[in-house]
């Protein structure tokens, strides 16, 4: 018969074995739960370097930005706005009816415009341009809250791009609205490149045409197909 060690020793042995099971549980828990502290760095290597990266902070400047903003009054090359057609959508004091000469209207341009429209404009104007975007819908709900507009909300229904007045706008004016905003709409000049804003303006004109087209504007060979597919 095997003779066993004293009880306290057996007990300590079992306890030590059980203690080994604790770390895996702790680790599994750490893995499963979010933590508001960044992981402790034991070995820094060169993970953090004395250099400034985009949008990082530099305490040497009063505003704390490492990225410096342009000095007031300076103009970057190519951004003088001398070509009013390109930068403002204005030709000879009137809204331009055409895109700038540097931007021929192609399928690629319109598809680019559609993509950009869906990113930046559809939030309020909706994918179809009827002023029924998700942001607009939510804001209108806030406006009609029974306790009055929540937290000072003062939303105005987003314009339908198929409103007869908007439909008559020249492409240059639509470009200008996208750039500088109008009434309660903010300008997107800082958010969207000039070429993309023109692509959007061209797409808006296309969208307007598509939603207000007559059978006469369809090429004769495609009319049968339209009649068959569109009810």
């Amino acid at each position, binding site marked *: 018969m*095997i*003779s*066993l*060690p*004293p009880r306290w020793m057996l007990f300590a*042995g079992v306890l030590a074995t059980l203690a*080994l099971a604790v*770390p*895996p549980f702790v*680790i599994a828990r*750490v*893995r*499963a*739960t*979010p*933590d*508001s*502290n*960044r*992981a*402790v760095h034991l070995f820094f*290597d*060169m*993970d*953090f*370097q004395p*250099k400034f*990266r*985009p*949008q990082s*902070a530099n305490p040497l400047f009063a*505003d*704390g*930005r490492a990225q410096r903003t342009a000095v007031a009054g300076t103009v970057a090359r190519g951004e003088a706005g001398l070509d009013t057609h390109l930068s403002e959508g204005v030709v000879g004091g009137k809204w331009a009816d055409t895109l700038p000469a540097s931007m021929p209207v192609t399928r690629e341009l319109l598809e680019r415009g559609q*993509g950009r429209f*869906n*990113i*930046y404009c559809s*939030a309020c104007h909706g994918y179809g341009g009827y002023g029924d975007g*998700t*942001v607009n819908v*939510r*804001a209108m709900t*806030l406006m009609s809250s029974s306790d009055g507009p*929540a*937290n*000072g*909300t*003062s*939303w*105005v229904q987003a314009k339908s791009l198929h409103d007869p007045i908007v439909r008559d706008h020249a492409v240059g004016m639509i470009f200008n609205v996208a750039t500088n905003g109008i009434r*309660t709409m*903010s300008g*997107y000049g*800082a*958010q*969207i490149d000039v070429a993309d804003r023109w692509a959007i303006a061209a797409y808006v004109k296309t969208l307007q045409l598509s939603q207000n087209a007559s059978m006469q504007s369809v090429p004769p060979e495609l009319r049968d197909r339209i009649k068959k597919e569109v009810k």
Partner: protein
Amino acid sequence: MSRFLFPRWSNLLLPTIILAATTIPVYALFFVAYGFSPKTLDVGYQPTQVVPYSHALHAGELGLDCRYCHISVEKAAHASVPATQTCMNCHTLIRPDSPKLAKVKESFTTGLPVQWTRIHKLPEYAYFNHSAHVSRGIGCVSCHGRIDKMEIVYQNSPLSMGWCIECHRNPDVNLRPTSEITNLAFDGTTELSVDERAVLKDKFHIKPSDDCSTCHR
């Protein structure tokens, strides 16, 4: 005077020591590999931001495209945090008096930036380029997870070197058409066939390198 004799149970010591000497190194190895892995240490980092901005509301419920705010992601290495003006496009009119927006309004009046806490951070000797990935079929969700379901954003992926290389060696599973780049619900492995992904790989000329200098320079 009686002599000291080892008790009979001390015969058990030898097998016990052998057992411990073989299992404890395995256990220690497991402990380090599992416990010190970036999947344990780095994933799930969820700092409290100065503005309680909800991606679940803006990107999820309202369906705003990621690029509405992160405008530089297709053009630059860095995916920019939006300017305060971007918030104010809507929030001059929507809930302008909400206490949650106090810091945004303060930034808008003073011109000083909102001090967001950075979550996703690579070691500074690694150079990741967002535009190179986003314009060639790697969607946001591959690294950032379902941001559109996160009330407060947390780090979804380990962002470790092994994790990067895993995809560089087998990028096909993460490819998607450029039109679905910001569609976080799109899953290329179920919605695209193997052949379709091979076509994408060809189209985008994807030959990811796993040389050191690809990311470290």
